[in-house]
């Protein structure tokens, strides 16, 4: 789709806002609809849109598959780490009250970040895997 000028220009304009919106949904999940899962999917959608219009190679140059693969595990590990730190601070597993006065707030934010990283990485990973399969044909 590299030759479609309108698509290219519109995509270039839209992608920053899509990614920004993903972060808005992520950090605003405590106050409005949304959270890590939706934000991760929106972020991945932005990257997939980039790959669709500018080609898989351009997307992989921007965000290397290795980084994405690491993100798949990193998000879940962050989630688990929050639980373990709560344990070490004397609470139960994933008991955010152990983090002090605003513990619930910080705990939820950290956990949602973990969900965000894993969901976004997995969606991009799945897309990369299928797209590479088609390209190698």
């Amino acid at each position, binding site marked *: 789709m590299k030759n479609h000028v309108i698509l290219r220009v519109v995509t270039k304009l839209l992608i920053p806002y899509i990614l920004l919106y993903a972060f808005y949904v992520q950090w605003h999940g405590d106050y409005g*609809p*949304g959270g890590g*899962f939706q934000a991760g*999917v929106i972020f991945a959608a932005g990257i997939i849109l980039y790959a669709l219009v500018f080609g898989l190679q351009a997307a992989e140059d921007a965000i290397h*598959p290795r980084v994405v693969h690491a993100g798949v595990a990193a998000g879940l590990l962050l989630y688990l780490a929050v639980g373990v730190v709560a344990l070490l601070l004397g609470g139960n597993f994933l008991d955010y009250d152990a983090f002090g006065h605003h513990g619930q707030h910080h705990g*939820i934010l950290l956990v949602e970040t973990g969900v965000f990283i894993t969901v976004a990485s997995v969606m991009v990973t*799945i897309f990369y895997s299928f797209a590479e399969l088609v390209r190698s044909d």
Partner: protein
Amino acid sequence: MIGEQLIGVILLALLALTAITIARLRNLLATAMLSGIFSLLGACWMLFLDAPDVAFTEAAVGAGISTILILATLCVVGADEKQVQESPLALLVVLVAGGVLVYGTLDMPRFGDPNAPAHQSLVTQAYLYSANAPAEHRETQPSRDAHELETFAVGIPNTVTTVLASFRGYDTMGETAVIFTAGLGVVVILGGARHRRFEPSETVDITPSDERPEA
């Protein structure tokens, strides 16, 4: 009120129409696009039922990502469904399963019933308490102790987030692990073909032995 009901009826009718069309189509490309439309209509329906979090997820995942992933899959496997022999047994199974599901809904409270357990539960009360101004809430809902609700809401305005990430944090961790496993499965089965580095000794010659040229 009538207008609201009309929107509901139209949305549900469109959902049913899309579902029937999907079931009758044999072209998988059209099916993928229609399932995206189905998800978008579903998201509208959920928003209509005042469930913005679920609608959000449905629109982002159902209408967005999964349509893309289905299309990516179709690029690999082709866009035409294999013709299968339609068996009357399958119809019977579908009818029985559908009947059981409908029978299950008979036990549920009537739609919009104010005395339904979902509306009386502490979670819903806390949700309404967080959503409305607390002072206003005290006047309209004097039955619950405001302090109790405040304690329950743990200071996060969106109760859905509180329930998902805090009260049921263990549950959400499992869900994250499920997504992790899905990604892992795809990577193990399909991914990294381009990045794999085979040593010459590891490559396997798949030509039959009698067709191989003499070394």
